[in-house]
Structure formats: C-alpha cells, structure tokens
C-alpha cells in the first residue's frame, strides 16, 4: 500500500510537471502554429539563471528566473519568429530548431559542457508523513503549483480582454485581426505567458534534478512534443491532458516493464506516438479550428 501511494504521487507529480511543460508549447501553437523546439532551451537557460543566482535569497532566484525567461521568450519572438510569421508551420518548426541549436551552443561556449550543480530547492526533496505514508514534499509542491497555475491561466484566458483576444486569435487569426485584435500584442502576450510557464517548470524541474548542462533542454522538449501531439495540437486542455498522460505512462512503464526491456522504454513511447499520429492525427481532443480548409 505504501509503495502504491508513493508511485501514485510520483506519477501525478510528474504528470503535472509535463502538463505545464506542454501548456507552454500548446499556447503558442494555438495562436501562430509554431511548435517551439527552443522551449526546452529556454528552460535550460532558466536552469543556468538559477545556478548563477544560487547565492542569493530564494525570492531573488525565483524573480530572476521568471524575468529572464519572459525576456528570452519575447526577444526570440521579436528577432526570430516575427519575421517568419507568414511561413508554413513546418518552416517555423525548422526555424525553432535553428534557434534551439543556437541557444544550446551559445551556452556551451559560455559555460562549457560540464553539468553545473545547484542546491536550489534541495530541502523540498525531504519526505514527510501523510496518512502514514512518506512522500517527498516536492510532489505536493508540484501538484499544488500546477493546479494554481492552470486555474490562473483559465481565468486569464476567460476573464481578461487580452485573454479573450488570445482565444479569438487561436480560433481564427485573420478574422480576429479584422475585428481589431492586434496581432503583435496577442502573439507577444502568448510568448510572455509561455515564458512564464516555462520559468515555473524550470524552478520545479531543477529543484528535483539539481544539475543543468547545455543539453538539458532536449529531453524536456521531446516530452513536450509528445504530450502536445498526444493531447491534440491546438487544444490547451488537450496539451495539459497529454502532458499528464505522458507523465503517468512513463512512471507506469518504468514500474511494470520487465528489467530487460526498461532501457527500450522511450522507443515504446515514441512508437505509441507514431501510431497515435497515424490513426488519430488530431490527438485525443480534436479542435475544430485546426482542420485544414480547402
């Protein structure tokens, strides 16, 4: 029983983290059809921000990370993605791969390849008693933060003017523009919110792993891709659901796969993704606005 509760808390917490990760990508995809391959590198750079501010107060670290990543997202929108706005989704994807390659190599030049360790959030790894079961505190933090952020995002998108504009733009960009939605503002806002979500993922993720290297972004962006595809590109609920499902499945596979097959876990996950794309290209939740019109 104890073991099961621990596994369940691991699965839910990993699923919640992946859900946040996928939301960041899904938000921008919905509005400008960009699957941002550089999202993982944003998080990696956030990791270095934590590393650099490790001496400071925790509040300073958190604020610096959020500022850094919102700024990074906005700058890359302005320099790279705005000029490419009219390009096809595939070209945008290639552009974001180039940006990712640029960022990871820039960090490699500055900080060299060896992983940097940090002690941010170390205390949270300690266990505490809950209904007679010992559970790492971080699992609770992740779950609570995710729930709060999702509620906040939902309120933001539904109750504020800019949020409504963003939803309109995701539904039909040209129509929204004709009705007076400012394209630059909406897209910049999507990047800012995406950067903010990425910053939170950064803080939660690196307080668990404790080390960052120029290649830290890659596995994260791969997971986010898988999650958004599984959930359904273009749907925020889908992205969150997809992230959650992927997190839970990877914990479950890790537990149930025979030891011989465990190294092949990722191969199974990707095979599932390809099958999913072939048989249900729209993902779990199909969005009307994403249907191609002729």
């Amino acid at each position: 029983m104890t073991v099961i509760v621990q596994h369940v808390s691991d699965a839910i917490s990993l699923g919640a983290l992946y859900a946040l990760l996928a939301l960041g990508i899904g938000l921008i995809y919905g509005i400008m059809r960009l699957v941002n391959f550089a999202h993982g590198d944003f998080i990696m750079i956030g990791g270095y921000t934590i590393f650099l501010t490790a001496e400071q107060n925790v509040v300073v670290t958190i604020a610096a990370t959020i500022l850094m990543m919102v700024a990074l997202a906005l700058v890359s929108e302005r320099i790279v993605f705005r000029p490419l706005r009219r390009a096809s989704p595939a070209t945008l994807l290639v552009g974001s791969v180039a940006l990712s390659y640029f960022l990871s190599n820039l960090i490699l030049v500055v900080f060299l390849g060896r992983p940097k360790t940090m002690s941010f959030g170390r205390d949270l790894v300690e266990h505490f008693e809950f209904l007679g079961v010992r559970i790492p505190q971080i699992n609770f933090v992740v779950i609570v933060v995710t729930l709060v952020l999702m509620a906040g995002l939902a309120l933001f998108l539904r109750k504020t003017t800019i949020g409504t504009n963003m939803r309109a733009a995701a539904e039909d960009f040209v129509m929204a523009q004709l009705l007076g939605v400012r394209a630059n503002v909406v897209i910049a806002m999507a990047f800012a919110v995406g950067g903010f979500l990425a910053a939170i993922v950064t803080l939660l993720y690196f307080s668990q792993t404790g080390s960052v290297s120029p290649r830290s972004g890659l596995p994260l962006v791969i997971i986010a891709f898988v999650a958004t595809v599984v959930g359904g590109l273009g749907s925020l609920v889908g992205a969150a659901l997809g992230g959650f499902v992927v997190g839970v499945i990877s914990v479950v596979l890790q537990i149930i796969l025979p030891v011989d097959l465990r190294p092949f876990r990722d191969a199974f996950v990707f095979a599932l993704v390809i099958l999913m794309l072939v048989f249900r290209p729209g993902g779990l939740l199909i969005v009307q606005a994403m249907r191609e019109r002729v």
Partner: protein
Amino acid sequence: MAENRALALLRRVWPVVSLALILLVIAIAIRLTDDIVLEDVYIEALAKLVVVVGLYIFVGNTGVISFGHPAFMAMGAYATAWLTIPPNIKRISLPNIWPALAEAHVAVIPANLLAGLPAAAFAFLVGLGISRLAGIAAGISTFGLLMIVRVVYSNWEDWTLGFSTIMGQPQYLTIWNSFGWGIFAMVVAFAYQESRLGLAARASREDEVAARATGVNIARQRLIAFVLSAYLVGVGGAIYVHFIGTVSIETFYVDMVVITLVMLIVGGINSLAGAVLGTIAITALIEMLRNLEGGFEIGATVIAAPRGTQEIGLAIVMLLILIYRPKGITGGREITWPFAPRRR
C-alpha cells in the same frame, strides 16, 4: 540529326551534368594544391552530399519535412560495419553477432550498396503509416523514428556495442571514388525526379487537392520517395563511416539532423541543385569557421574564436536564410542549359 539528338539529351541531363562538372572542378583544384586537409574536407563533403541528396529525394520532392533521416544513416553505418570489418577483428569486438555475418567480409563498394537496404526496409515498414502524414505531424513522427532507432541501437549491445564505438572499417575513400559516390547519388535523385513517380510526388507537394484530383495517390508517392530516400541516406551513412573509420550512435543525433537540414535549406529544398550547392556552401562556411576557431594571426597576436563558433554560425546562417531567402540560394531552380534560346 544524330548531333541534334545528342545535344537534346545533353540539354535534358544538364542539371546533373553541370553539378558534376562543378564537383569535378573543385576536385581537380584540390588535387592541384596537394593539400591533404582539403582532400579530407572534400571527401567528407561528398559523403554528406550523398546523405543530403538522399534527404532531398523525400523532403524536396514531397514537401514533407523530416527530422529522422539520420536514423537511416545510422542503420547504413552499422550495416557496413558488420559487412566490411575483417572477420578476425569482428571475432574480438563483436563476438555475438550472427555467425554468417561474423564470417562475412564483403568488398567495400557492394557492402555500401547493400548497407542502404536495412534502412530502406525499415523506411517501408514505418512509411506505411508516416506517408499519410504531413507538416508538423510528419516532423514529430520522423523525430520519433530517430529516437526509436537511437534507443534500440544504443541498447543492442551484442551488435552495436551500445554507446561505444566500433572500429576497423576500411578507410578506402579517395577524392575520386568519393566523387564517384556523389555522381551516383545525383543520378539516382535526378532519374527519380524526372520520372513519372517524381513528377507525381512534386504535384502532391505543390497542391495536394489538385494532385489528388488528377489521380495521384499521395500516400503511395510519399512512401516511394521515403523508401528511395532512406536507401540513399543509408548508403550515405555507410560511406560516411568509411571516411571516419569508426561507428558510434552519437554521430547520428541532433547535430546531424541540423547540419543536413541546414545544407538542404540553405541550398534550396526544392531542387537537386539546391541540395548539392547547399552542401558545398555550408562545407565552405564550416571550414572558414573551423579556421577561425583554430585561430589566426594579426601581427604578433593570435586571435581564436571560442569552440562552438561553428555551430552558432550555422544556426545564424540557417535563420537568416529562412527569414530572407526561404527558397534557398538556388531559389528552388535547377541549373538549366545556358546556350539555347529559352523555350516559350
């Protein structure tokens, strides 16, 4: 009359002949300088050329992006290792592979041609599904392919030594036989794109709905292009390891995805000339950046760019091309016969 026919034929195959001439001129120029480093650069470039032309067969003709082709390179690379490493070395380094393969010692050229087959077979199997996809879904699932092949090969210790390197492939490439491989790749790609199949694939790239309306089975055309492309990329991967002399799964990962795509995109995705000229241009650029990293002298001081300049430079070039010249330096056109009046 016969002369006319010969001229007409030359004009028809000029796009590939002209590219061959460019490569030949570069080869001769490098031979004349007698610079061993430049010779190696040329051989590596030609090995990459086979891969980029192979990638072009799929991406260029069908317009569907692929991030997964280095997986086919890896399959070709390991296949040629199993075939060409002398049996006495294999008995020590790979004691657990099939006895038939352990005793095999195939000559390099047939081995390289055979090495594309596993990639082609795998591409056929997964292509049955993937050929139904386009755009982002294709990009993500081809990336998935890369991950699957990487995970499987890096854990298939008996055959691949996992993340370690396999040594002992004969390094048989010279400037001339690598030139020959380049010609082989370009002829395959050109023959395909001029054929009925290639035209159908291009039609599906330009306008899916119109192509379907004129009777093109889009999924089938994509599948054919995918398999042919995987075969050539597999052969290219095999040739590439005969240049390096070792095989390691790390060679065929994100860096390889980026560099082959940069070559194709900078040249121009939609033409064979784009694939070839892009490979040449990016090779030249990388050499320049590599020299910068090596350092150069101004007066008495040596200035060296930091390690990583190469990759950063590549990324910037790729972004600039995507933004300012999305069709690449060739604009997606072939090199046409320069001496005849234009047909109306």
